[in-house]
């Protein structure tokens, strides 16, 4: 820079000085609003974003390669580490894939227990997302309220499977243990309380003029664009596209439950926010139905060998993760270790939409958009 200027200085340094240029801003990897070690290199014209380049891989652990050296059973806890905010959903995705590969019929009661834990995990994930998203936009109290409610779910998990964050909740074939005594009552108490708390969050945010100004019309992405980019989950549904794995490709007896898929209209940050908040209410509906209609029966299939050795072949199975369609692709060569594993992680693919959303907006909108995507870097980098 300096040498160029010195060359130009002979002619007219002042003109050089007054030329306007874009500015490069390193957004991350250590930045409070990138939700992890995500790095975006922003090209700025003043405060306006003219270009964004995502740089990922700071949290790459090679999980997909790693599981090739582990047996199917031993690989289960590893997948919790992908999306560490929605670990149970990851676990469900993986064990579901192996079960599909081995054509294991999961007992009905185990399926219902999985639904209960899945939906609790989804609520926990969305609560944490809501808090951090609100914190990104300056409303710090919502974070603490959200964490307070999430804590109850964490306690439920701890009582049910023994761990709070990375639960390793499901073994291949079913679930390990039934609900402990009193668990259902505690869960129902929580479910009775949560709608009122959600109302409070909506009082603090949904109608707040500052929140509306920060989110309405920001980071608009149309339904067609969202589909073309492969977005999924609430990010896609915020753009008004009806796609929910639980409805469209039902798994784990989700077809038994009556629930709606909330859709946005404009595809802006506000729609993605409101879709997630409504999704929490729908999750509560599913929870209610699952607890009410809990069937009796075994938790694990009758005949299940201790050593998991699926037949040779390949399989793709996806669940509706907290962030979107969470798919697992496994290739088996008949041994007890997967020959190849690939994860279609929703955070990674949703991140593709970021450029469309932020270019032309302001720096502050980048924060709002990253928040509205709900990325977890463990899942982006794998």
């Amino acid at each position, binding site marked *: *820079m*300096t040498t160029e*200027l*010195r060359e*130009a*200085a002979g002619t007219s*340094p*002042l003109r*050089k*000085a*007054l*030329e306007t240029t874009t500015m490069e801003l390193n957004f991350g990897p250590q930045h409070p609003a990138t939700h992890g070690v995500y790095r975006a290199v922003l090209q700025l014209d003043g405060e306006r974003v003219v270009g964004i380049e995502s740089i990922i891989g700071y949290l790459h652990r090679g999980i997909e390669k790693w599981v090739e050296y582990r047996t199917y059973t031993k690989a289960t806890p590893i997948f919790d580490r992908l999306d560490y905010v929605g670990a149970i959903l990851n676990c469900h995705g993986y064990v579901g894939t192996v079960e599909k590969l081995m054509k294991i019929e999961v007992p009905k009661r185990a399926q219902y227990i999985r639904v209960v834990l899945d939906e609790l995990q989804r609520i926990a994930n969305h609560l944490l997302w809501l808090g951090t998203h609100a914190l990104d936009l300056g409303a710090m109290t919502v974070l603490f309220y959200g964490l307070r409610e999430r804590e109850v779910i964490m306690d439920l998990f701890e009582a049910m499977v023994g761990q709070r964050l990375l639960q390793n909740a499901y073994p291949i074939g079913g679930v390990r243990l039934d609900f402990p005594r009193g668990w259902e009552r505690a869960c129902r108490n929580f479910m009775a309380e949560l709608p009122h708390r959600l109302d409070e969050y909506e009082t603090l945010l949904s109608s707040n003029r500052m929140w509306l100004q920060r989110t309405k019309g920001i980071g608009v992405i149309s339904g067609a664009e969202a589909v073309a980019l492969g977005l999924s989950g609430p990010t896609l549904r915020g753009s008004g596209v009806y796609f929910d794995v639980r409805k469209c490709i039902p798994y784990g007896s989700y077809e038994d439950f009556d629930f709606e898929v909330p859709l946005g209209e404009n595809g802006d940050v506000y729609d993605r926010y409101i879709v997630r908040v409504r999704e929490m209410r729908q999750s509560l509906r599913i929870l209610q139905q699952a607890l009410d209609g809990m069937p009796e029966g075994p938790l694990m299939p009758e005949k299940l060998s201790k050593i998991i050795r699926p037949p040779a072949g390949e399989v793709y199975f996806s669940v509706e993760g907290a962030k979107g369609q969470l798919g697992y692709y496994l290739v088996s060569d008949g041994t007890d270790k997967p020959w190849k594993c690939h994860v279609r992680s929703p955070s990674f693919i949703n991140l593709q939409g970021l450029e469309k959303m932020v270019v032309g907006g302001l720096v502050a909108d980048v924060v709002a958009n990253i928040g509205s995507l709900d990325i977890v870097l463990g899942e982006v980098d794998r």
Partner: protein
Amino acid sequence: MTIGWILLFALIIACALGVVISRSPIASALSLLVGFVGVAILYLALKAEFVAAVQVLVYAGGILVLYIFGIMLTDNEALRLTRQVHFQAWPVFLLVLVLFLWMGHKLYHSDYAATPPAAKVMVVSGGDQAETAIAALQAQSQVAAGTNTQRLASVMYGNFLYPFEAASVLLMVAALGAVFLAKKEI
């Protein structure tokens, strides 16, 4: 006391020089800031509190911030390479020196030097007009009581209301024009 005055004057002049000859634009701006504050102290000493406060509020707190704003947004490295003192500077400096000495000579031998302290109090820094106006008003003994600020207000909004308003309209037009020129789309 005299030493204090000499120090203040030296500070103001040094700051003024610093504004002109400093290589770093931000150093120039800072010199200007100190200069403004020095001049404000001078106003205070002349018992023109209002002008002093306005000097700090408008020039130091407002306009100078805009200067610094501009400096921060420009490529500082290139500005540093431009010459601050050109060969024209020396003749101009001499000319200014001569003018300054001549003015000082005239001032020294004029009646101001002998003005009694009582009248000095009235001398409000606001240009010759205000000064003479106050003197005239004082002569008519219309505005005897009240603080300095009140007298300034009565002059500004009494005798000189129309010129004052005309000046403000002119400034408004200039500001609007500047906005129009600077903004790409309105």
